[in-house]
């Protein structure tokens, strides 16, 4: 435990130092850069609200990652699963009749998102269980296919592209019907939607599932030793496939929440790397859902702060990306210094 604290503390220290160096390189004094970062996180209801929306997306993906990881699987495919979830959610969200009650519309949207993501992860799960293909490679490759499917969907009128009326028609879908848009949480000028509530519920349910149910114990058993679990009579294949599908499903829901927030359309690159960041959150949290919640919030705040860092202090927003990756590399690289570190 003490070593863990040392590693995390050291990693954060290194990351902060790198951040300061980058801010100085960008020509901003530390206090100016710090001020801009802080304002971008907590300075306005808008900034904090968008940070919460990002947090929700990351937490959903990282929760799914943690569930699959408990069964010994590494889901690198969050990005592609988000993409498929987003496509499915858009397909539902633009075609619902106008008078649909919001509760029904939102439920349909989220279920579609879950199904899209679960289906995409299901491909990798099937290959893993039936043919023993390493899920890391398949989920990674399927990311790129999924992102291309978004490209395809928004460029083809036969699929989800809005009707082309002039040369200026953007390659994106029609906006979702009113009822399928995520309601805002309430505070004025805050873009925060109920996605954060959804994410919080998922984290809590997943924590209870993994810790207090027979399914959780079975998943842990499979994760610790497949042969031993099989000898105990556990349905190893079904548990693994199920956990990976749930991971994909949660990533799909994350994609659906992105579609159902402003500007309510499916567009190219709407996943914008959240899938990979969510994976990183899951890895850093190392199986603890409390850590998932905390790290998601920290990364969500950092992302929002980074945008303001560029706007207010003129430091390229890319520096936040650098700081995050330095953090990951330090934590991942210190694995042999941690006693009994689970790999």
């Amino acid at each position, binding site marked *: 435990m003490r070593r863990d604290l040392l590693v995390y503390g050291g990693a954060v220290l290194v990351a902060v130092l790198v951040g300061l160096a980058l801010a100085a390189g960008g020509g901003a004094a530390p206090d100016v850069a710090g001020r801009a970062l802080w304002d971008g996180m907590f300075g306005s209801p808008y900034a904090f609200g968008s940070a919460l929306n990002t947090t929700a997306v990351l937490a959903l993906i990282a929760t799914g990652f943690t569930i699959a990881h408990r069964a010994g699987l590494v889901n690198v495919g969050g990005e592609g699963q988000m993409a498929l979830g987003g496509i499915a959610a858009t397909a539902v969200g633009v075609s619902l009749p106008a008078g649909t009650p919001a509760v029904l519309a939102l439920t349909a949207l989220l279920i579609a998102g879950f199904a899209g993501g679960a289906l995409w992860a299901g491909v990798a799960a099937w290959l893993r269980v039936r043919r023993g293909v390493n899920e890391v490679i398949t989920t990674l490759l399927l990311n790129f296919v999924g992102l291309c499917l978004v490209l395809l969907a928004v*460029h083809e009128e036969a699929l989800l592209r809005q009707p082309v009326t002039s040369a200026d028609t953007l390659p994106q879908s029609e906006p979702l019907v009113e009822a399928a848009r995520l309601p805002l949480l309430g505070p004025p000028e805050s873009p925060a939607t109920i996605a954060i509530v959804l994410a919080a519920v998922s984290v809590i349910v997943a924590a209870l599932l993994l810790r207090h149910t027979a399914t959780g114990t079975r998943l842990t058993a499979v994760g610790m030793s497949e042969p031993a679990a099989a000898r105990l009579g556990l349905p190893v294949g079904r548990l693994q496939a199920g956990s990976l599908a749930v991971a994909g499903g949660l990533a799909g829901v994350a994609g659906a929440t992105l579609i159902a927030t402003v500007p309510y359309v499916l567009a190219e690159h709407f996943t914008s790397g959240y899938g990979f960041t969510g994976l990183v959150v899951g890895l850093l949290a190392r199986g603890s859902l409390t850590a998932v919640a905390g790290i998601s919030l920290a990364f969500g705040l950092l992302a929002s702060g980074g945008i303001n860092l560029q706007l207010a202090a003129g430091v390229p927003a*890319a520096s936040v990306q650098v700081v995050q990756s330095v953090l990951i590399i330090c934590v991942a*690289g210190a694995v042999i210094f941690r006693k009994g570190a689970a790999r």
Partner: protein
Amino acid sequence: MSAFAELVDGGVRLAIPLLVASAGELVSERAGVLNMSVEGIMLTGAFAGAVGAHTTGSASAGLLCALVAGLLAAALQAVLSVTLRADQIVTGVAANALALGATTYGARLYFTEGRTVPGFDPVALPLLSDIPVIGPALFDQSVLGYGCVLLTVLLAVLFGRRTGFGLAVTAIGADAETADRSGLPVNAVRFGAVLLVGVTSALAGAHLALADVHAFTDNLTAGAGYLAVAAVIAGRWRAWPTLAACAFFGLAQALQFAAPAFGIHLPTAVLVMSPYLLAVVAVSGLVGASRAPAGLTRPFAREARA
């Protein structure tokens, strides 16, 4: 130039960086180290090459900078995945994010006016370049392009399946413990293999920046590094199929631009996704058995007992 010749020309131009990068990655993966960071090292190489060429005004100096930067980036990856036994996929993806962030940041600060840089111009080989269609495509490359192909051939010969080097690498990737007991320096070879990936990936990146577009733009590589890794997987860890995969990926990319000339109206997205789809099919074992090196992504430490 006919549409067909243009397609072949574009395909070869896009395939060369993939080819050289996957040649290094193939050796490394056969030794048991998966470098997701090919993408990041390529980007680093492209950026360093562009900065070097821009500062000195000489493309060769730029190439040197690219190689040094590539080696440094690869050394970081090697320390992480071989010495510190960190998760190779995680650190690889993180290294890519780091490279993307750092080069974007660096480019903002460095390239304040214009992003074009001096580069390598094509040198047409006499006679050979007069062969119709494949002549201009294959034998009208830059010095850097020829260098990439030459290095690829060299690596293929040196690390073939029947040479001493090749056997040693395969043995280490298949079963590190046994290889170690039989006296092979497992971690030294793996470290070297990652450094080799640094050289080949940096060359690939430099080719993109200095011989192809003659400029540096944010995220110049745009996934080419992942394609190189996908080519090795799609080629099922064998040299010839990997070469074929690279050629196919290059042509698929070139077809995006050439398709209208053939009257083919495939959506771009279908062409962009085809390499990845092909790689998925290849690893899924739907067409023949796929044999990944048994020790791929498994770090080795002598005292470790599984």
